[in-house]
């Protein structure tokens, strides 16, 4: 994982996560657990005995691997919240080694050529649609320098 941090130059210098008070995290928000960016699917609060201080128990799903993760933090302590972006790109090309050439919407990010078209269902869909000559739009989710293809659709607006 750490290698990828070095390779990805696009965000160099920018923070990949920010601190936030644990009790302020909401369901559906994001959190770093054991170095992985996750989406919070459940939060419960408990305390050790009636007169103890509250702790937040997070249940979250790894944004990239889908693994379920759990973490506990005192309510007043800070936890790390990953910066997650979701950008739409137009697929310009898929080269022989399986890498996309992606063009961002105007004013949103830069041209990307470092993302491989995955072999799962979404990737297959993108490949087929592209080979059929369609104008393909993909949505890429990015956090801590990792990327994932989350949606594929045909551009019907014609831009």
């Amino acid at each position, binding site marked *: 994982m750490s290698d990828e941090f070095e390779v990805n130059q696009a965000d160099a210098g920018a923070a990949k996560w920010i601190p936030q008070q644990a*009790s*302020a995290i909401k369901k559906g928000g994001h959190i770093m657990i054991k170095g992985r960016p996750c989406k919070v699917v459940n939060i419960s*609060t408990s*305390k050790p005995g009636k007169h103890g201080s509250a702790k937040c128990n997070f249940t979250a799903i790894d944004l990239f691997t889908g693994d379920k993760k759990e973490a506990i933090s005192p309510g007043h*302590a800070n936890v790390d919240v990953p910066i*997650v972006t979701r950008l739409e790109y137009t697929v310009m090309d898929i080269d022989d080694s399986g890498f996309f050439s992606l063009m961002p919407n105007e004013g949103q990010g830069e041209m990307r050529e470092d993302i491989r078209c995955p072999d799962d269902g979404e990737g297959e869909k993108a490949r087929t649609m592209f080979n059929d000559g369609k104008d393909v739009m993909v949505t890429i989710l990015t956090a801590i320098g990792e990327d994932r293809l989350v949606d594929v659709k045909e551009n019907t607006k014609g831009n």
Partner: protein
Amino acid sequence: MDRVLAELQEAARLMNAPSVNQEQRKQAESLLLKFKKSEKPYAVCKSILENSDDPYLHFLASSTLKEGVMREWALLGDTEIDQLRDYLLNYAHSHLGTHAYVLRQMLHVVALIVKRSIMSRDAAYLDTFVSNVCSLFSSPNTLNLGLEIAEALLAEFTVADKTLSSYMSYQHNIDCKRAIEGNSLYKIFISTMEVIDQLKNSPVSPHRREWLQLMSILNSVLSWDFGVILSKRLAQMSSLSLPVVNLMPSAQWAILKEEKVLALLVELHSAFSTERDIQHTTRHCIVQLGTLQGSIFNDQSERVNFLSRYIAAMVKLANGACAQPSNEEDHGIALAIRQLLWANTCQDLVNVHVGLFREFLGAVSELSVKVMLKSAKEDQDEGSTQDVVDVILDIWYTLLQMMDTLPRSPLDQCMLRVVECYVKCHLAPPTGIRDDSQDLDEVDVDTEEDDRLKFRDQLEIVGSLARINLEQTLPHYTSLLLERARVVRKVVENQEECTALYEDLHWIVLLIGYALADAPTDSDLTIPATILDYLAKQDVSVNVESTQAYIQTQLGQCADLPTQNPIIAPIFAIMELSALYQDILGKGGCHALSPQVFSSLIWALTRIMSSYHMPNERDYQFIPTSVVATFGVDSPISGWLVMFLVEKIISGLVYYSGEQSTVEDCLALLQACAKNSRVSLVLMKDDNFKKLVDRYTSGVLILPSSKANRMLSAALTVIMSHLPTNEHQHFIDRVFGSIRDSTVKMLFSPEISEVPSSPVLTQQILTALDTFHGIAAGIVNKIVDVVFNTVIPILEGSVNLLKISQHVQPITRSILELFCAIADSGILQIDKVQTHRLYETCYKVLKCYSDSAASRESLTVGVEDDRYDNILLCLELLSHLCSKDFFNFDEPDSYDETSSRLVLVGLDIIVPHIDVELLKFPKLSNEFFKLITFICEVYPEKVVGLPDNVVDQIVLMLKVGLNNYNDDITFYIFNAVSALSVHSATNPLFQKKIGQIIKHTLLLISGQELSAELYDTAADMVFSFICKCRSEYLTVVNEIVVQQEDPTSQECLRTAFSALIPATPTTTLTRRDKGKFSKIFENFAVNVYGICR
């Protein structure tokens, strides 16, 4: 016949065999179900009873007979019915050893047959039958059978709405009940008593079963509702609120008031001390006898005599219970005493001999103390003794309400004893006896209920009881609190484990909070009348100077309080502990202190300050001098108190920022201050408060939950409303100006597209949305323009935000919640132009949600939950928008058009996102059908005129809703269809669609798949349809009839359906006609049962 029998036997075997595969069991089940519905099943059933030895099959045969005879009643003659009845009786007689559940089912059929026969036979039919049954009591061989039949008859003839037999109409049920009350019930009772007299001298064990039956019959008679029979609607309403029936028989039942019935019951009760189930029933009989009242007593003295005997018996039983460890006995006696007090007025009780009543109170106190001490030693979550404690406290509360009439002494002393015992149970040793062993367990904050809610009823009653002896109780509380407060600092410094200490403090604070203030409704806390009365008589003056000196130099030092006034002193004790807490928090002792105790303190301050601090003279006839001098608007202390409260609120927000509930309690205190205009005005001048506002506006203050954020901005908005009108804008600019400007700027700038990917911006936006949610919720008439103008640009900007952040559920939800908040609290107050602007924005947001929902990312976890939340919010929004025309009286026409159109369009947008799966969430389906019904009832003509595809969608939803969800939904749907039928008279196409729903309902009724409680509403619907769409009704009826294969059934149905059509065509649906039709419809439901196949 033999083949059928063999098949059924095999099926029954498969149903009960342990190792059978699913498929086989399913087949067997369907065969048995088919048999249950078969035509004329009598011969097969008889053959089963005679030839099979499988009890399960016997039970099935009995049930089948019941279904069959009720279904085919009209087709069977009197002779056939009587033969069947006698056959069952003979069979039962010759097979007494058969399984009890089979026998009961069989006799249940007999009872049903007798009940249904009554009306068509002569008057003596029932009396003869009952006489025959009672004659069975006389021989030991037939006693058992006789008792079983009597039990079955009583069960069948009681009219309890929930168990109402739907094979007969409500009127028939009532008539039968009246018939049995004539003579037969009394005869059964007397015969039963005779048997008891004979049996009571012989040992219990050989007659255990008989005793159970005898007591159960006695119980049925004593629980009989002799009261006036209400109309069906009233009966349905009262059955919800009155679970207990008072015994009010006619003068014929004079025997009940005689000594011997009570004596017998008490004797039996002690005789059955080892038989728990029989004793349970005798106990219930005793409880019921205590409710005896009405015309049976010729004069007051008879009543008092009875009451005195009963009370004497209770004293004996209660004293006996005190010597036993049985929880059930405690519970039973407590229930009997409570029932006695509820059923009798204090005028009756006051006539009971003083000595006896004193003895009674003594016994009740003794029992109370025993029960409470026992509950303290038990795990509180188990709740079995907690139930008894609840009943005990109910008793004391009832006595408290009789306090004006009953002699005060020794009642007040008994109450003091109860309060002292309650306190003792909740304190740790050595003062109390609380068991702390479970307090170290992990507590789930989300599910754990706070004590102040969990024990609310108990604490409220104990609070009222404490006020009766406030000279003793309140100083006691005060000293308990101060004693413990003195230890806190030491404990924190030495870092000792002190859970027991905190638990004590927590409970004492709760007790004081409940004793000093009570709330007639949840929101209006007042100084209790008992306290006002006490202070009116003997007010202990408060020296303002010395108090001022004390608060300036000694508060928080645990010094002696400046006053001995029993009311003011505990308030200072609470303040003392709060000051001490704040001092330790300021010195970094946060982790050593209990957040729970701080929460309780803040809660108690909220409660006390809402009632005592700067009280409004208009709320009270009289305010005592000591309260005015200390907390009145002109007192220097009360001004200082505002500062004091603000400091506590800030401490909570700062030191407990991770404790959601503590922060919310602090903000509830702020809201309470904001509500009081006098406090508000002082508050705004306070420097600390200004700092708090500054911290808030500059975004430095972190609040742990959306709710907290909303509470704070709502409190600030309410504070603003107390200002002169010309200062509102200035206030809003100062407090919310920066967040408003920055949010509007962000919403309308290109930067907004970065919100979904930036946690910082997301958080910022969420906080802003929460703030505006609070502002919207705090809207009141005086500030409506200012608030609306502040919020509307945010709403308009949110539409675009919703589109961009469609994948960020917290934002989506917050936006929809904000719309709901403004629609909920503001819609009735905003003017015409504002309404239009709001409608337009709501339309856009719904449209935008709908567009984005279509493309929601399918990979996200928990999408279903999110969808549920969002759709529910959209429906709530539409419901709130509807309420505009509902309450708008000034210019109905101008709003009507847009509001109805908006709601219809809104539904059109939202409906495609709702599917049958989603409607399985009860809250959602409830909201959805409520809205649809509302629309159909208020704008039926518009619904009728909608485009075809929308109408189809709505009709489909109504049809799906009809038998998939609960009764409430069916109720809504019937109302909706009624309204639509009335307005579809000129639209044959629409009638056709509605006709399908009517058809579906009629089929449901014929299959008895509809709850009997819904018949009235169904009748209204069918009546509207018949009157307004007669030709379509005939078509529907014809469709149902031709589907039947059997010509007799066809004929039967045709007659039943035609009977529904009113003789004189009417198009005006009057209430009277509807009432008449309702009765006809009920008979119809009885007649068509089981005919449609």
